[in-house]
């Protein structure tokens, strides 16, 4: 049966058909849809874990118990899970363990652009890289087989343009019945990594790599496609697709297993062509490994190592390398440059808007921009931020965020600034899911070391940015079952924070009072700002409108940065199709002229 599947859907279906029994993940673009798809099957166990490290450990446990387990995450998630991942490589597994890690070349939705392939080398595990959805589906079966055959976790590396592209998949397998009943066999030399046991495992890891490299020679995913012999292209993943479209007549070595590499196959290929170019996204990972084998290749001196590739960039690289004669036609169209950008923004009715407006105005950052878009003024509060939709409060007009690094970092950074002795009050802002992921240990540190900061937890009851996944605070499991909800206020009080306030995200007066009181408190304080994510509002009613008779164009409402409040040709108006109405009303609460109210009478 043919299906048009995204890479992520194909990976999930491939894993299901390969007999996976346990799946765990923390949401992260572009990997999220893998677990979402697996959670639909009720004959397996799938969970949103608290973070990627817990997910990896869950996968280890399940694999130790003899069943096939899958963990999935975005590339920075593997940083969080790396300790467990390398531990899993050291002990080996029993049932198959596959870790899908999704890179984000071009940093479409990530704080960095790291190349996950280095982890395969670091952890000494085999790595597979699909080039489209069909391969994503097929490779999952091989990944579990390799994992069990070689007693190793397998890294399956995907990327945004594989995970989030749809292509045609011939679905030609059914679910294989899980071979084994979960059953853990005691084996302390394998599973208890006392140094004395770890030293026993080390040579086994090296032997494993040698055997894997031999296995890679005959693996059908590593494939030579002979064309004309004057040029050979070595490539993998989506880069292969670009190269295939650009170098029409060349010979190709397509690598589906990119660690360890099939040395004989590569030598055979290199010997069969006049010259070789390596086309790969991000770092020269293949190139350096191939050069180390003594094979002369072209690569990153022509192909960019920064950003996402595309066919045009690969073509330009080919031209620079003198491999393509065809001149480039690249005509810019006048005006398509220098247009107003359309960056993502906090949604209309977002429960984060009110609190950031308070922080922005109290910190004296917010004012109407001048014609050049500048409203520079040093803030009176330092606001350390975190990863989530609320990072968008960095943009004008709110400009209410000073740092964002990685999951959970804002709290530790706030402590560091306070201990360093900055003059301003430091406020750490973190979302509910991010707090549970890696903010809790920061609060423990703050209590223990008598921090004098304010921590604001933005509780919108979901993991919003990745598409509204449940988390431990929501009380609903990944598979939609009711479960125990972890209450944020009980967590922070239990850790020992005395000053804990819970405030309605849409009550501007209460927000201002709470922030004022917490900032004035010389001790540690926590504010939980609670309000439903507007995207999840089932029914919208009472959309607001601007009364032009009363509006004096002061622009205060525009300082919220609400996308429903628009101004075109000198007129401020509210787009009723975007406005969250009665659920929000913060613009109405702010308007000095009382010019904003519900749309009266009939609809527009």
């Amino acid at each position, binding site marked *: 049966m043919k299906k048009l599947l995204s890479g992520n859907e194909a990976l999930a279906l491939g894993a299901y058909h390969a007999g996976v029994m346990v799946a765990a993940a923390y949401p992260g673009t572009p990997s999220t849809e893998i677990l979402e798809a697996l959670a639909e099957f009720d004959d397996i166990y799938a969970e949103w874990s608290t973070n990627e490290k817990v997910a990896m450990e869950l996968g280890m446990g399940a694999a130790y118990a003899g069943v096939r387990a899958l963990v999935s995450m975005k590339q920075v998630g593997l940083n969080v899970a790396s300790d467990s991942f390398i531990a899993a490589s050291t002990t080996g597994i029993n049932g198959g363990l596959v870790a899908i890690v999704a890179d984000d070349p071009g940093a479409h939705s990530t704080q960095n652009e790291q190349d996950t392939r280095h982890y395969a080398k670091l952890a000494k595990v085999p790595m597979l890289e699909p080039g489209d959805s069909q391969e994503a589906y097929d490779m999952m079966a091989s990944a579990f087989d390799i994992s069990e055959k070689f007693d190793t976790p397998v890294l399956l590396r995907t990327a945004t343009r594989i995970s989030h592209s749809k292509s045609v998949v011939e679905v030609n397998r059914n679910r294989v019945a899980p071979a084994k009943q979960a059953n853990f066999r005691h084996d302390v030399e394998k599973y208890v990594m006392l140094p004395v046991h770890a030293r026993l495992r080390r040579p086994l890891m090296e032997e494993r790599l040698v055997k894997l490299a031999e296995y890679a020679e005959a693996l059908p995913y590593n494939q030579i496609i002979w064309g004309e012999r004057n040029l050979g292209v070595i490539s993998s993943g989506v880069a292969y697709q670009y190269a295939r479209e650009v170098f029409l007549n060349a010979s190709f070595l397509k690598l589906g297993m990119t660690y360890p590499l099939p040395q004989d196959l590569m030598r055979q290929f290199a010997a069969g062509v006049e010259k070789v170019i390596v086309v790969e996204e991000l770092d020269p990972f293949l190139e350096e490994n191939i050069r180390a084998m003594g094979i002369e290749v072209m690569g990153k001196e022509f192909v960019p190592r920064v950003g996402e590739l595309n066919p045009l960039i690969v073509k330009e690289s080919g031209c620079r390398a003198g491999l393509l004669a065809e001149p480039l036609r690249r*005509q810019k169209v006048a005006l398509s440059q220098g247009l107003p950008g359309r960056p993502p923004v906090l949604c209309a009715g977002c429960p984060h808007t009110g609190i950031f407006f308070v922080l922005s105005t109290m910190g004296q950052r917010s004012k109407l921009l001048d014609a050049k878009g500048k409203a520079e003024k040093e803030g009176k509060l330092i606001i350390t931020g975190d990863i989530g939709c609320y990072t968008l409060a960095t943009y004008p007009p709110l400009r209410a965020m000073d740092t964002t690094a990685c999951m959970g970092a804002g709290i530790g950074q706030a402590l560091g600034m306070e201990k360093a002795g900055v003059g301003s009050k430091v406020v750490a802002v973190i979302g509910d899911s991010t707090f549970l992921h890696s903010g809790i240990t920061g609060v423990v540190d703050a209590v223990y070391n008598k921090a004098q900061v304010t921590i604001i937890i933005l509780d919108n009851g979901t993991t919003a940015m990745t598409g509204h996944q449940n988390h431990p605070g929501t009380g609903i499991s990944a598979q939609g079952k009711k479960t125990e909800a972890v209450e944020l206020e009980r967590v922070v009080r239990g850790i020992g924070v005395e000053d804990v306030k819970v405030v309605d995200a849409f009550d501007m007066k209460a927000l201002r009072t709470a922030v004022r009181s917490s900032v004035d408190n010389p001790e540690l304080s926590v504010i939980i700002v609670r309000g439903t994510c507007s995207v999840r509002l089932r029914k919208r009613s009472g959309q607001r409108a601007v009364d032009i008779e009363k509006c004096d164009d002061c622009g205060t409402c525009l300082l919220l940065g609400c996308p429903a409040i628009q101004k075109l040709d000198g007129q401020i108006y509210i787009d009723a199709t975007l406005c969250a109405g009665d659920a929000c009303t913060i613009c109405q609460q702010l308007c000095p002229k009382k010019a904003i109210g519900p749309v009266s009478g009939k609809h527009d």
Partner: protein
Amino acid sequence: MMKKLDILMVGVGGQGNVLASDILGEVAMAAGYDVKKTDTLGMAQRGGSVVSQVRMANRVWSPLIKEGEVDILVALEKLEAVRWSHYLQAGGVAIVNNLAVPPLSVSLGTHRYPSDEEIKDTLRQRTNHVYFIDGTDKAKELGDIRTLNMFMLGCVSPFIPIDVQIWKDCIFQRLPSNILEINMAAFDKGREEISNVNLG
């Protein structure tokens, strides 16, 4: 069978760009083509630029279309049409919904939204086949502004030599039954509308 067709569908988050281009991909697959389809969404759920690329041919390699090789540009918003105009090939087709959604920088007064004349002039640097459609008004007339994406799909459909029944089957399979009727009406309306529109 066509040799190849590359379609770029652009809009603003929340307009239904991804669903419409998904259906377009499914239509092409049902008609026997190889298909690749990819979306670029940026980091948030709503409000940013959304770009969907659909490629159909006997064999498709890259999911990304080369700049200057798009056969049909479908824009659910005018500024986004201009932003992606350089992707259009000379002589291609541009179908533009006559809707302005000013980005924040325009509302805040730091940037200017281009005039209709500027938008048309820019697109005409690439092609004379520019269709301006009052899609948002038509969707409102149908009773739900959210049918805009199916209306625009209807507008595109006559430019792609695939039987209309395949389009309808794919829409039928993809949409929930409670909104099927109005969306099917929007598709029909779009298909009819495009034949009445003068080149803008």
